[in-house]
């Protein structure tokens, strides 16, 4: 079958796009491992830059992980019950609440950070702590966890399941734990992966809200890009990629699994 010129054009554009997106990433990995980027491969490869980066910035890596996990824990505690409450209530009220909760996605991170600093800048201990950064991350990621859980709730017939359990004598809290939670697990897992991924990559909010004591990985990266040589910046980026790419693969796998399950 003769290929239409549009298909060819489409393939070319897609290929160029892929190159555009992927080549710099590969370059960055490469640059982080060369002895001297300007001299290229001829100068050989080394892990020295990675080691140096680790020595300078390992605290940011741990902190980013801690912030991400803490953010996740809090989105689970706040977002999952909240999502269920909204779906139960339904109607305009629930939609309005979801709109409000989703504001941090629409409003520029800087504005939010500014708002938080103005409100809590005076609370010294809180302001200086990692918890302050976590709050910022929580604002931004909570809508994603809630959306994910709400989406699953809307596909299962939660109302009838709830009535079924009630007819057997199960009180409200037990119905939530025994029946609702297990059946929204796919939504929680997908949401969790998204939250952690977003948290590790969050910059706009964190840059404004951090102190020298509460730097996360992206904040460290900004420092490195501004002041360090290319090899160090690349090695640091490499570490970031190593953290983030497995998570992204996880998100995709879960998405594929849920697609297969809904198709069967």
């Amino acid at each position, binding site marked *: 079958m003769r290929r239409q010129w549009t298909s060819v054009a489409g393939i070319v554009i897609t290929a160029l796009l892929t190159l555009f997106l992927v080549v710099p990433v590969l370059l960055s990995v490469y640059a982080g491992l060369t002895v001297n980027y300007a001299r290229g491969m001829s100068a050989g490869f080394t892990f020295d830059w990675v080691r140096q980066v680790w020595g300078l910035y390992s605290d940011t890596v741990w902190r980013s992980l801690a912030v991400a996990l803490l953010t996740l824990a809090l989105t689970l505690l706040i977002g999952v019950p909240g999502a269920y409450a909204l779906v139960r209530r339904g109607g305009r009220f629930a939609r309005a609440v979801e709109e409000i909760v989703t504001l941090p996605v629409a409003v520029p991170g800087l504005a939010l950070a500014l708002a938080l600093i103005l409100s809590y800048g005076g609370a010294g201990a809180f302001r200086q702590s990692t918890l302050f950064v976590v709050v910022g991350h929580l604002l931004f990621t909570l809508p994603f966890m809630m959306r994910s859980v709400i989406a699953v709730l809307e596909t299962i017939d939660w109302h009838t399941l709830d*009535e079924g*359990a009630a007819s057997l004598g199960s009180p409200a809290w037990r119905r939530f734990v025994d029946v609702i939670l297990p059946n929204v697990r796919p939504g929680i897992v997908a949401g969790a992966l998204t939250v952690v991924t977003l948290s590790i990559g969050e910059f706009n909010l964190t840059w404004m809200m951090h102190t020298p004591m509460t730097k996360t990985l992206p904040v460290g990266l900004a420092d490195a890009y501004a002041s360090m040589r290319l090899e160090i910046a690349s090695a640091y980026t490499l570490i970031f990629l190593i953290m983030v790419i497995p998570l992204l693969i996880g998100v995709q796998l879960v998405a594929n699994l849920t697609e297969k399950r809904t198709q069967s």
Partner: protein
Amino acid sequence: MNIRVPVAAARSGSSITTRRLSKTFNGTTVLQLTDLEISPGQILVLLGPSGCGKTTLLRLIAGLEQPDGPDMIRFDGEDVSGVPIEKRNVGMVFQSYALFPNMTVAENVAYGLKIRKIDRAQREAETCRLLALVGLEEYADRRISAISGGQRQRTALARALAIKPRVLLLDEPLAALDAVLRERLRVEISLLLREFGITAVYVTHDQAEAMAIGDRIAVMQKGRITQIDVPREIYHRPANDFVADFVGTMNRIAGRVENGVLNIQGEETMARLNVGGPDRATTLCFRPEAARLASGGGAISARVAAATFFGATQRLVADVSPECRLQLDLPSNLSFTPGQILAFDVDPDAILEFRAEA
């Protein structure tokens, strides 16, 4: 797939009484003032088209909806209006079964017992007993998604029975199944309900199902009960036009009664029904099986339009006039050709007459 029935189960279950029970949603009265008396162990079927209020009535009895006022529903004489469903100890079988996808068949059946803090050994014994009762012992550890529709139905039933409810409520439990399965399960549920002797309220829109299962049938229309009686009476003595039409097929002959006889004259067809009473315009009704072939001149002569063979019987469609088409059930060993004129009689006791609804 046999249901093993227990030997001589005791009659259990509460009586259900409703007094002036009504339900209004957003200004629309979905259930009109309803008075009901269901004795312990009785099976009442709520029958009617969609929107007639039967499901609302069931949900009110269950405790999933709140009545319009206090003290409208009583179990064994006690007002249960303020009691939520969790505390009412009603067993409920939902139209979509409401089986928990995250639990196995056995775990679903045992759930109510788990809530009541029955210890594990007893729970397992009870679950086994119930699964055996509904013929699902081999499926105990299966996931809900791995069993068929009929098996899910029986799991839902077992789960509701496990808590030894005082009242069993079934909301169109067979609606999601195909016709063959429906007929089979209909018999099994009926047996099970009678052996357990629990008071049951069964909602359906299928009149064959209603007549097979119910001790009594309440035919509902537009939020009220139009007739409540045993199936035989509902069928043979429907209270009004609606019931007559909804339950079984009904033939209608409209005309004027003069000197006690309704006379219709066609070209080669006629109808002459002797019903007595004053002169009036009326519609006379009778069931297809009330017709008998007449050897000589009969009460009705009609032209055969079509015949459908049903094995033991056949159903004939015959016209007295273009406006008067009748359906008659006759033995199947005779054959008729379209266009043939047929003479037959109608059992006089089977002729019904309804006052026109205002």
